[in-house]
């Protein structure tokens, strides 16, 4: 042992105990000082809540109207959206980069680099659905002055589909057979099969076009060395002048932007880091920032922050749901696999039991009391865009009817232990989800209802980094589903719900044989549903397609294996001085930054 360590072990003598009284007095004074105008501590909220400052007086607001201040508590670390591992990076990249087109809130097309919307009438779409021809805007320049051409679109396709690059947006581009530049402003995309979802490529979040002349040398494993990952060259309204990953990004107006004369800001500052609550305060209360990204703050706390800005909620495809495991989590196969397709669940496979659970969910209480302005109760699996939302469904909260259903199905408490049973099977369930105060409260509400109709529910919460990890070796992931019920949020991230609806087909069941890869963790398998999905995947007629999506949704709602709870919004904070924000759930908040203005 070194001398240093030995000497450190020398005991300390502390003789200040008599100062304790003085200390207590001072501590109390301090507490009183902070306590008198603190918000009433929102019940058992996230720990970050305790680190917020609070006051009615505000710090001096920024008066410089030519500077836009964005505050992202999740700090961007890379400005190549196709290489990012989180939406925050894609958000920041979207200020400098653009797709050919994007989707407005209703799912309709909004043009960026494209000159016109491809349709069958103007020859942009082929009749058989295998070919799309995009007309590009002429005279568009990259921020370094190089002209933007169809070759850049072709290159972006080659870059994204190169497995050595490892692009996160690769999936949609797998459907493409070839991308060809017909001339400088015309690009033709040919699909392997008739593709009704042709608009998933080069559009929206995953469609940002990269400059060929910048990335040409980095189309491979050396892509991580590309300087443009940190200093992007784009066609967007603002260009990066300085980027410190995980901290701050500075943008200036892009002089080569096609509408450069109408940009409102000379400088855009994107500061990252900190916590969501203090970010909310800086935008909504003190006015230190003009825009705050993803304000994941409890509704009760948000409501108290007023004076400088508003909370803007955007409803996209995200929906919080409870899944009922169709396989038995309590029995293992000979190969040691639990929740295996070989062993069906003893009672959740019974449609009447599922209906009873569905009736026992108090969606209105959960949405109103817990989610507030950030969620709405829903009965549907597909919740957006509005044209695909089924008008045929509804939800009811009726504990008596639920109990009657169970009685009629023969689930009664025969051994008087307070839990319903049938043929020796007790209705005991484990209900798992990730650690999150909102989810734990929802669990409590659900548990209370289910126990009141004679089911036993044990609550389990798993750290989010494990639960969502997709690690095949970990039994606590949502794909392994080693419980009877589980709850999480997902949904379609683009206005086409086809991929999302595929996640309820038999082929998407995670199991040992496929190393637990797949999104259908409830292990729901219905050949009728699969056949209908196949039809929808091939249907080119938009109206027919819409009908099919609604039918698919209605089957899922009718079967009640996936129980929709709350349609969730993403929330941003917007300063009262900031105008022109036009959020869409199908693109990033910054998609319309060219039109943002500050009074």
């Amino acid at each position, binding site marked *: 042992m070194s001398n240093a360590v030995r000497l450190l072990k020398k005991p300390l003598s502390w003789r200040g105990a008599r100062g304790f009284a003085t200390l207590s007095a001072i501590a109390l004074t301090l507490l009183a000082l*902070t306590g008198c105008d603190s918000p009433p501590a929102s019940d058992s909220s996230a720990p970050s809540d305790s680190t917020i400052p609070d006051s009615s007086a505000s710090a001096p607001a920024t008066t410089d109207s030519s500077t836009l201040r964005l505050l992202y508590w999740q700090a961007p670390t890379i400005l190549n959206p196709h290489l990012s591992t989180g939406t925050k990076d894609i958000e920041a990249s979207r200020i400098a980069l653009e797709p050919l087109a994007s989707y407005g809130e209703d799912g309709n097309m909004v043009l960026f680099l494209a000159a016109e919307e491809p349709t069958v009438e103007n020859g942009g779409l082929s009749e058989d659905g295998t070919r799309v021809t995009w007309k590009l805007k002429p005279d568009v320049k990259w921020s370094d002055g190089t002209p933007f051409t169809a070759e850049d679109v072709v290159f972006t396709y080659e870059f994204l589909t190169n497995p050595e690059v490892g692009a996160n947006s690769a999936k949609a581009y797998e459907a493409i057979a070839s991308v060809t530049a017909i001339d400088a402003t015309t690009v033709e995309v040919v699909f392997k099969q008739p593709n009704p979802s042709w608009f998933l490529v080069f559009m929206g979040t995953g469609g940002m076009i990269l400059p060929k002349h910048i990335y040409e040398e980095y189309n491979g494993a050396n892509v991580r060395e590309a300087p443009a990952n940190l200093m992007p060259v784009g066609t967007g309204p603002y260009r990066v002048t300085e980027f410190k990953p995980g901290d701050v990004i500075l943008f200036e107006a892009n002089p080569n932007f096609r509408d450069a004369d109408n940009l409102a800001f000379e400088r855009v500052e994107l500061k990252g880091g900190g916590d969501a609550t203090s970010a909310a305060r800086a935008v909504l209360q003190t006015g230190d920032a003009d825009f705050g990204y993803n304000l994941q703050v409890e509704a009760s706390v948000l409501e108290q922050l007023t004076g400088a800005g508003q909370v803007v909620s955007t409803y996209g495809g995200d929906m919080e749901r409870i899944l009922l495991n169709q396989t038995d989590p309590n029995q293992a196969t000979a190969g040691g696999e639990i929740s295996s397709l070989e062993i069906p669940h003893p009672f959740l496979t019974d449609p009447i039991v599922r209906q009873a659970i569905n009736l026992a969910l108090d969606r209105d209480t959960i949405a109103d009391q817990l989610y507030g302005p950030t969620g709405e109760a829903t009965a549907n699996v597909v919740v957006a865009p509005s044209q695909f939302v089924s008008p045929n469904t509804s939800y009811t909260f009726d504990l008596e009817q639920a109990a009657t259903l169970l009685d009629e199905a023969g689930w009664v408490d025969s051994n008087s232990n307070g839990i319903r049973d049938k043929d020796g099977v007790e209705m005991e369930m484990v209900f798992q989800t990730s650690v999150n105060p909102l989810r734990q409260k929802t669990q409590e509400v659900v548990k209370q209802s289910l126990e009141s109709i004679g089911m036993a529910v044990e609550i389990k919460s798993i750290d989010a980094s494990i639960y969502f990890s997709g690690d095949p070796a970990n039994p606590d992931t949502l794909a392994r589903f080693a419980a009877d019920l589980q709850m999480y949020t997902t949904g379609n991230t683009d206005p086409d719900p086809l*991929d999302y609806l595929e996640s309820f087909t038999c082929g998407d069941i995670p199991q040992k044989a496929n190393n637990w890869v797949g999104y259908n963790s409830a292990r729901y398998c219905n050949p009728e549903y699969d056949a209908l999905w196949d039809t929808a995947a091939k249907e080119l007629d938009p109206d027919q397609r819409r009908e099919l999506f609604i039918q698919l949704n209605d089957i899922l709602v009718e079967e009640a294996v996936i129980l929709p709870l709350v349609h969730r919004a993403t929330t941003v904070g917007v300063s009262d001085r900031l105008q022109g924000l036009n959020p869409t759930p199908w693109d990033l908040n910054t998609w319309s930054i060219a039109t943002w203005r500050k009074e």
Partner: protein
Amino acid sequence: MPTYLLRRTLTALPTLAIISVIIFLVLALTPGDPMSEFANNPAISEEVRANIRRVLGLDQPIPVRYVKWAWAFVRGDMGYSFTSRSPVVDLIVQRLPTTLWIVGTAYILSALLALPLGIISALKRYSIVDQGITTLAFMGISLPPFFTGLLLIIIFSVKLGWLPFIYDSTLSVTNWQSFMQQLRQSMMPIAVLVLFQTAVLMRYIRSSLVEELPQNYVRTAYAKGLSQFIVIWRHILRNALIPVVTLVALDIPTVFTGALITEQVFRVPGIGALLIDSILRNDTPVVMAIAFIYAILVVVFNLLADLLYVILDPRVQLNR
């Protein structure tokens, strides 16, 4: 001395190797991967996620990954961050000045404050002054930085509007005005750190002084007719500071890793904030690099402290 140095260096190498294996294993076995934000996004298929893991090198077995990492580290290459795909060393170098400025300044200030406070407090034991100082120290140790940070923000940013609570790292100090601005935004994080560190150091200095005061050599020195200043400066401090030197030497590496909570509260982009963010994003190369550099610094400064004893206390023999 050279033999001693050589022996210590040679024993340090296997220690560091074992430390690196342990850190690597802990990080590799921790559940979660950098793709977890996309875990239940149906637009990103499992094949795409698997391919990204392959590109990041996460598909290889742990021993292979360790050997690759260790060999690269020896050559000075700390690898690439998963989330920013840029070299880890760039990220650390970018943040080092901020951390050294905030945490380093705070440490120097607290050492400068703690020494006189500790001495006064020990000499005037049980007086009002002593009780005042020890009470303050007790508070400094007991109040967590996130609380004091919050308190300062409420008072100075929100109530009075004097100081900013969002740290601007793009500010370059070119003239008096920008220097004042830099000072204003650094003041609160530094104050939070000073409050805590001064308390710790002051307690150490006080207690080790208190132990020396009744010793016979002190009485002899006074009997010789030496002034109080000489007795304290020449005789007592020399003995009393030995444990303090150890503490300071072992604290210096923490200046490098930054202040985790304080940096987060004030949005100071230092190494501490980088470490927390990287842990949350499962960015293992960054976490690994920071943790291991910290381990190296601890070993080095431990050795340095041992060498300092020889100078402070001739009774300490190194060639045991």
